[in-house]
């Protein structure tokens, strides 16, 4: 072997050896990884991993960190996305050895039926955010769903679809994880999070009650007749004076069967959690 070959082999061996030694020393003498990090990783295994932020922490990792630090976080505020999933919830409860409260998840509803006619042909930036900038959107009702799908784009599980005929966002409660990303994405503030056992919601967001012309803007608009409040027997429907629209009982989620039937515009819609006449047997 020539001297050059020897030198090359020697140099490469030397550099490789030194580099390996330095890595070894670094792994030996650097402060050890937080033990809690492994715990966090294990808790994170149980979480859905959607990083939706519904729990109030920035992502599943941060939530797992908070739970690893203080398990009461899990008891008082279980992951809202995991909560409706009994099987997954049980596994995490078994692992932590705790029982969680507030297991009812949240689901999103769109307060609009999309029946309002289009006032003009909108050809701008193809988002609701863009359309809402131009004269409260291109639909006749200034409060209505614009149907350009800003909520569809942000929905982590893809639970929202747009009905192309009526141009309205439709949320599938089976897939909805209640993260609330669509709530902040909607420029019309039409989407609201409900308790998952809420049996009905209002399909209208038309707030300018005394605007008589407004009544005719949409065949499905609330006409503020308050019949729903009059027929309610146990206070399942009350009147929200600020929005000037009916509001449903959010605490125990009473079923407003009479109001659903009597509403002249039929805009009190049943949700997937509707179980018939439960509250008035």
């Amino acid at each position, binding site marked *: 072997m020539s001297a*050059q070959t020897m030198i090359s082999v020697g140099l*490469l061996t030397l*550099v490789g050896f030194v580099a390996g030694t330095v890595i070894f020393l*670094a792994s030996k003498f650097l402060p050890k*990884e937080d033990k809690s990090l492994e715990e966090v990783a294990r808790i994170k295994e149980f979480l859905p991993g959607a990083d939706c932020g519904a729990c109030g922490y920035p992502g599943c*990792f941060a939530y797992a960190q908070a739970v690893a630090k203080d398990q009461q976080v899990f008891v008082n505020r279980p992951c809202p996305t995991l909560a409706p999933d009994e099987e997954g919830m049980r596994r995490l409860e078994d692992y932590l050895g705790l029982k969680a409260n507030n297991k009812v998840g949240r689901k999103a509803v769109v307060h609009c039926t999309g029946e309002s006619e289009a006032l003009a042909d909108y050809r701008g*930036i193809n988002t609701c955010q*863009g359309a809402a900038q131009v004269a409260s959107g291109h639909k006749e009702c200034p409060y209505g769903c614009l149907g350009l799908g800003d909520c569809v784009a942000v929905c982590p599980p893809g639970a929202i679809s747009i009905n192309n005929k009526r141009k309205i966002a439709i949320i599938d409660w089976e897939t909805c994880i209640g993260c609330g990303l669509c709530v902040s994405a909607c420029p019309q503030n039409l989407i609201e999070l409900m308790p998952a056992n809420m049996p009905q919601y209002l399909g209208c967001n038309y707030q300018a009650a005394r605007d008589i012309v407004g009544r005719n803007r949409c065949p499905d608009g609330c006409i503020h007749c308050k019949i729903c409040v009059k027929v309610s027997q146990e206070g399942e429907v009350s009147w929200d004076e600020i929005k000037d629209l009916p509001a449903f009982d959010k605490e125990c989620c009473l079923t407003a069967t009479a109001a659903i039937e009597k509403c002249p515009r039929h805009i009190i819609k049943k949700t997937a959690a509707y179980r018939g006449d439960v509250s008035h047997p």
Partner: protein
Amino acid sequence: MSNLIAIFFGMALVNNLVLVKFLGLCPFFGVSKKLGSAFSMGVAVLLVIVVASAVTWPIFHFLLIPYGAEFMRTVIFVLVIASLVQIIEMTIKRTNLTLYNALGIYLPLITTNCAVLGITFINIDQAYTFSESIIAALGAGAGFTLVLIIMSGIRERLDMADPPLAFKGTPIAFITAMFLGLCFLAFRGIIR
């Protein structure tokens, strides 16, 4: 001193890593979709480039040249940079978890980034002194970060735009990169 300033801006703007030297193109397109991640990636690259230059320069001048083994610089540099990134990642992971979460995914990506290796070669080819090569690395990293931030800003806006269907996504990004490269060509006249 003026020499160092010239090297810094020469590396950052005139001989920009991405747009003029065509190094580090994969992160340029891969990580330039969101402003936040583009910034993290840029800072991580800046850090690694500077440390890699600081380590490879002495190795070349005090180890390879005396033994007449300059031809081995590629394999030696690759070895050194790969282990270097390992050590940096380990250090950050164990000392600052928040920083690790911010940079985490990007550090291993950089291990195989040609931009880092490219800068160490440029330092050798231009016969820079040690301080000059550190400044050159700083400039190159700053230029890389700058271009990544500009590109991500443009791409965030591009998502809003409504290009023909065939151009949607990466094709329009390529065309944008071309215009960006043309813009950076204008820096040619500043420093020879």
